[in-house]
């Protein structure tokens, strides 16, 4: 009777575990992936880089002359400010492109290994049992 109860409890515990492993935990792995993907996006500041893609580098700009007229001095100043600001903008865009590319490559690599981790997770209980069994066979029967 006691033996039966222990067996039942053991089976219930194993069943409870498997229910978690292939149910709740499987769902949680997706959340974990999502969190890790968010982490990569955050780590490479992708959102901020994309939203500020056209912003001048570190917002370094020069101010345009206040009253625009066609006198040569003001016009020169206007052109020079425009040139500097455009250069800063392009410089910012180039650097951001590189940073975005690095980030995207990392995110993509991460996404590519997701199926592998999924397979690993699904096989994990069997993998553990196999490792233990195979280990014992190697020790005692080889």
């Amino acid at each position, binding site marked *: 009777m006691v033996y039966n109860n222990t067996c039942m*409890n053991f089976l*219930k*515990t194993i069943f*409870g*575990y498997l229910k*978690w*492993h292939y149910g*709740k*935990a499987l769902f*949680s792995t997706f959340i*974990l992936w999502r*969190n*890790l993907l*968010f*982490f990569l996006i*955050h*780590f*490479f*500041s992708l959102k*901020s*880089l994309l*939203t*500020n893609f056209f*912003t001048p*580098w*570190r*917002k*370094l700009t020069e101010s345009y002359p206040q009253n625009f007229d066609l006198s040569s001095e003001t016009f020169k100043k206007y052109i020079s400010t425009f040139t500097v600001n455009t250069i800063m903008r392009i410089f*910012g865009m180039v*650097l*951001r492109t590189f*940073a975005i590319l690095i980030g995207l490559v990392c995110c993509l690599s991460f996404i590519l290994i997701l199926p592998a981790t999924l397979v690993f997770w699904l096989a*994990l*209980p069997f*993998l*553990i*049992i196999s*490792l*233990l069994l*195979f*280990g*014992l*066979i*190697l*020790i*005692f029967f*080889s």
Partner: protein
Amino acid sequence: MKINDYLKQSSLNNILSVESVVSNNFRNKISKLSKSIIYIILFIFIFYFLFKNSTNFILYKKIVDFLIPKIIGLLFINIGLLLFSKLIDFYFSSTYYFEKISKNNYSKDEIYTFSAGRVFYAGRKTDILHGFIDSEIGKEVFLRLGISDIKKKSFYNFQKIEQENVMPKNEGNIMKLEDIINYFYDYKPTFVNFLNEEGISKKDLLGALNWVIYRIESEEYEKQWWRSEILLRNKGLFDDWSFGKTYVLDRYSRNLIEDEEVNSEAMTISNREPEIIQIENALSKSSGSNAMLVGNPGQEKMQVIWSLCRNLKKKKVATSILGKKAILLSVNSLARVCKNKDSFEEQIQKIFNEIIHSGKIFLVIDNLTELINTAKSLGSDFTNIFSPFLKNNAIQVISLVNTNDFHQYIEQDKTLSNNFEVIYIKPLSTEEIIKIISASALKIEKQYNIYFTYQAIKELAEGSIYYFSDGVSSDKAVSLLNEISPWAKRNNKIIISKDEVLDFIEKKTNIPTSGRISIKEKDKLINLEELLQKRVIGQNDAIIAISNALRRARTGVRSQNKPIGSFLFFGPTGVGKTETTKALAYVFFGGEENMMRFDMSEYQTEDAIEKLIGSFTTGKTGILSNILREKQYGVVLLDEFEKANKDVLNLFLQIFDEGFFSDMTGTKINTRNIIFIATSNVGADTIFKIVSEGKNPKDFQDEIIANIVSRGLFKPELINRFDGTIIFKPLEHDDLSKIANLMLKKVSERILEKGLSMEYSDEVVEYIITNGTNKVFGARPMNRFIQDSIEAQIAKLIISGEAVSGKIIKFIVKNDDLLAEII
């Protein structure tokens, strides 16, 4: 219902049974062992591949060939075990919902929380109480409460196992450990008695319990590296690229998001949500979107900002500040660099322009008044520079200001105050302070290898409020905690209980900490009347009143937020009012030097209050604040109290009521360990009249006080504020005779040191009473008279060489004159 059946109703039962087989400790051991074996095997393989062609290996080829598959087998087993322990860790972690440090995700059908489940599981073969004592949580709670193992075991063995007729209830909500404790208090009287005998209240038990749960949960929480709030703790690699560079601001500021406090879970304990919502609302306004946090000096205001930063990090803030950086402006570094008005104004302009340009910053100014004063000292008007920026929508500022400074400088300055939404920061309650320092204690324990009991933590929190009135309680409690740890380590104290905390506070403040009365002090307290009567003659009623007040104070019966006692002594001059005060300082506080005397007739003028507490405008410190800052324990004598200025009387009203006062800088000064004695001879004529009619003034106390009040010198509310109003009666002939004898005895003792003795008859005593006392000044002239008539004659005899060692000086009265003879 049996516990087993109850346990099975929840899905957590499975994980509890897994935990009982492969506990956390067990998993850790397996994991460590497997890792070590894996490393050793890897090392062996590296060694093998490097040297497999060497002659030695070839010689033992057979043995090597035999061993290699076995080593590989061992490697597989250990990888399997390591994966198994990690997998169980995940299993356990993912079903662990946090009650204390995060949102509690229990659903109703789970019936009980994890910590409650552990207790039920431990008690499934006995009963819930035994389960609690047996469980890991229960064991830790007992340790935290300082209950020794022997006591716990003797109770455990004595307590019968009783199958539950009634199960703990929680009105359909998830069952928590607190509900189990409530159940014990309702159904397990022997357990409650056991705790009471150990001096542990229900509140203490719950406090210790919550602390233990917090400890377990915070460790579990830290393990969950995959949680988004943990993954997103650090800032992005290229975050700065999108912001305008703030070259000038960077020199004088720091990003608060990187502060340790923002990332510390311990700081999430205090609930600052109401204040944070107010700040967010203020910063979301269409114009003048600035907030001013007003509170006590200290870190409490900053704690609110840190809480806001935590929300900012989790992106759980109003859109007006979402994605922005909280930058703290360091007024000190600004003041160090800017040496004149122009450079200061230039830097300020640049800083604010940069903030507007950056567009991603809200500025925090830790001490706005300091900035205003710095500007003022350089000849600049900060308000004028600041105000246009404050009105600008592109800028958001949170200023932190001390309450006193706010009232003194900012409230009146409408240009400034109108641009800020004022938010008052409430001080944390003692319970919240206990929670904060108990969380910090967990880290300190690991650092110093010490162990705090819950009572010690509670005493640190309460002691920080009671013995240190200046500053914010939570800061003081944390700094006490930080100071006590190295002290304990130095003194080889591993377990820090309440006694160690009281010892530490006593050493730090020189104030005897209540709660423990030494044998010497016990004797003093019990025999206080007798000890005082040795010095004070004829004032038994006054002595009894003071003695009772002191006993109340030292046993903790008195209110903790007031001075030890405050007494008003009425009576004619020379009846022993000052002597009683001196005697008290001598007997109870260890010496007359612990009496601080203030002649209140010196504080009659308008500037009296400035003399006492100092003046902000002149920068002069006050006499009362200086003395009480240095000496927080003793007797303060306020002579001729009625003569003090009205403002001074009001100051003392506050002191008697609240046990502290603020000096000119707004710093609180503790007076909770002081006895205040105010004396006055107003009403002396009424007392004389009553005595002359042969009545005891004590029986006419109400009439005497009514008479004093009617003269307008004392308001009834002032008299009522004292713990006791004591009438000193004029000294009778017998009292004066005792005083004269006492004084002569003192002279006799003094000359005995020179080998001389003194003799005198009752006639001499009578002569001293007749000539050395009078109705107006009572016994006061007696001391002078003895000096002039007795001591002067002795001195002459010593100088003339007549009085040498071994001789006796005899005083006699002859022809109405006092003469000295040598025998």
